[in-house]
């Protein structure tokens, strides 16, 4: 009995989503405590509440696998970190769109949009009362925070760090070539642009989400490189605000095409659970 419990706990603790929840959670508290973010507790509660209720609702009618609450929590934290709004209901709406999109917009049992991403885009488009503040992060500590995240993700093999690394190398490389080599700005300017919390959060926590990016490693690398190139063009030549968030939204529908060309097994959150893999078709 005890042995079983311990083994369950071990399996459970290996779920990389715990890592993401803790990391994003600590970042949210860091932001509120040290970066003078407005601690809109009511908004956060609305987002968490609506996300969990929506997740429970859909889970009840589909897989009945309630461990997916962890995914909902990650989405919730992503929304709390990125979505700005003065209205509580806008936050709630974003959470609802985010979670319900996982169940409603699917191709071959894989949801198409990153939930937090579509939640933000949905709230911006539908309400006109939401926005993203790319300047909210400051610099310095934020950078080391994400270096830490990257390091831990590599060591702990959480998520799909290859996407983040490819994306940052391509985007950072192009930006360096333009800003420093061509335009002649000092390296500080490039560093300042790269050292942006929204960009790094996007790279390490949004496009590493195995559920909405291509399954095959080669496909992921191509996909991340395309995203990096597009972001470079959109932000440097079209001066698009919050370009990364919008591009991910537009590129997401192409993920199934990548999956069709490069065939590979779909990602599972919990590795040591063979009985769950059988159910993977139902996994959300």
């Amino acid at each position, binding site marked *: 009995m005890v042995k079983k419990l311990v083994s369950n706990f071990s399996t459970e603790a290996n779920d990389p989503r715990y890592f993401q929840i*803790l990391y994003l959670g600590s970042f949210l*508290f860091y932001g509120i405590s040290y970066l003078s973010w407005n601690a809109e507790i009511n908004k956060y509660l609305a987002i968490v509440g609506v996300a969990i209720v929506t997740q429970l609702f859909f889970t009840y009618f589909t897989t009945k696998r309630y461990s997916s609450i962890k995914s909902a929590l990650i989405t919730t934290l992503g929304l709390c970190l990125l979505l700005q709004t003065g209205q509580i209901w806008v936050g709630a709406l974003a959470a609802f769109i985010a979670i319900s999109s996982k169940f409603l917009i699917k191709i071959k049992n894989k949801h198409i949009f990153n939930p937090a991403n579509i939640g933000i885009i949905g709230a911006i488009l539908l309400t006109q009362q939401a926005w993203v503040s790319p300047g909210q992060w400051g610099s310095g500590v934020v950078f080391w925070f994400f270096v830490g995240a990257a390091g831990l993700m590599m060591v702990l093999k959480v998520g799909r760090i290859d996407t983040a690394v490819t994306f940052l190398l391509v985007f950072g490389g192009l930006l360096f070539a333009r800003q420093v080599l061509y335009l002649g700005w000092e390296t500080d300017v490039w560093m*300042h*642009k790269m050292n942006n919390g929204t960009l790094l959060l996007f790279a390490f926590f949004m496009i590493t989400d195995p559920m909405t990016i291509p399954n095959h490693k080669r496909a992921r690398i191509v996909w991340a490189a395309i995203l990096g190139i597009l972001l470079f063009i959109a932000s440097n030549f079209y001066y698009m605000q919050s370009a990364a968030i919008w591009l991910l939204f537009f590129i997401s529908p192409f993920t199934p095409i990548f999956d069709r060309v490069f065939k590979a097994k779909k990602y599972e959150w919990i590795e040591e659970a063979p009985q769950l893999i059988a159910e993977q078709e139902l996994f959300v």
Partner: protein
Amino acid sequence: MKQTFLFLISLVAYSASYAFCGFYVAKAGADLYNNKSEVILVRDGKFTTITMSNNFQGNIKDFAMVVPVPNVLKREDIRIVDRSIFSMLDAYSAPRLVEYFDENPCQRRYYPVPAMYELDMVEETSVAKENSASLFKNKVTIEARYNVEEYEILILSAKESDGLKTWLLENGYQIPEKAETVLEPYIKSNMKFFVVKVNLNKYNPQANGGFLRPLQITVSSEKFMLPIRLGMANSKGEQDMMVYAFSKQGRVECTNYRTVEMPTGNNIPTFVKPNFGNFYSDVFRNKHSKEGRNAVMLEYAWNVTPSWGGMKCDPCVGNPPYFADLAQAGVGWTNDRSSSVFFTRMHVRYTLDKFPEDLFFQETPNKTNYQARYVITHPANGDLSCDDGKKYTLKLRQRRKKELAELAQLAQWDTYEFYDYIANGTDKIIGVEDSEKKNEFIPMGNSSGGKNPPKGLFVIICGLLVVYSAKRLITRFA
């Protein structure tokens, strides 16, 4: 010999120092606003109207200005506005001190409505460098040439920074050495240069108090930004800039630096009143350094739609901008009833090491009102010997302790200097025994402003993260 005032959107090329001039009651005249680095930014779709304060104080024939712009401006994109618009907007949106009067609980009476004091900031600008003039060779293209009242304006485009530098030098514009390297990125980004001189035949030194009038330009670009880099080319010191931004939807915020609200609503001791300027200066310095010296400070944000009857400040330091003022500032949609006018005042104190990149902005739908506002409350006078009066006296003592703590925390003032403040408010009051007034504890900061969540929670989450990582590592390698 010619002096050049070379800047990028109101940026002073050489050292600019900044000092508070103290305390002015009510509205200050335009003469108090010399040498202030101020910009009015109006964003309407992809159009940005920029009004630059002009504080040049040297010989007028030596005046020159270079501003990079994203496109070739047409004649109608260039206007001259009245200097008073800056003092008007500053007076209206400046951090404010509001004064209240306690009622004597033993004799109910009414006191005057809150009085307002306004803060004024004055900075000095020194711009001077000698240079030699010579004829130019056509290394640059003159895209357009306009005579706008007392100004002679050229719109230049350049292919290389050397060409522009040579042209400017040969035409008598002394540019700082390092400015040349900063010009290069703007040239390569295909920006044009708005170059201004004064036409001495049309300039009337008697008009406008001897000052040059502010120039206003409208540019069309998706980029909503203020290039501050050239202004820092030769200066390692701190520079201050006030940005008065108007938009249709809501607050304007910086997208590549944090926009942080100044502390507001704090109750501070009554003795701060005559030194409010110094007080706010210290609050600003303290907050700015606490935020890592790389944040843009928000001092005011409010819906100022002239046709909207709602309250526009609480209370107002000056008159809210009305149709004519907004038109002067470059707001072109005041007659459009369906659009509102939102006013954001940002205070940027920048240095090269902390602000390596130009300032980029975005308009947000954030309509939350905000003002930097500090409150002093005068104690009740007269006989306080009734029961309520005694209670009041105790409360007053507590309040004053808190006020001192706020002062220490906000402005880092040494509150030991004001040790008698707690007792002073009460011992003047007739009929109250003040046994505690000796050895009064003077608080030293850190007691207020606790809106943040407990930092312990942060530590707990980080702790869990460490435990989790360790656990993963052990299972992975075991």
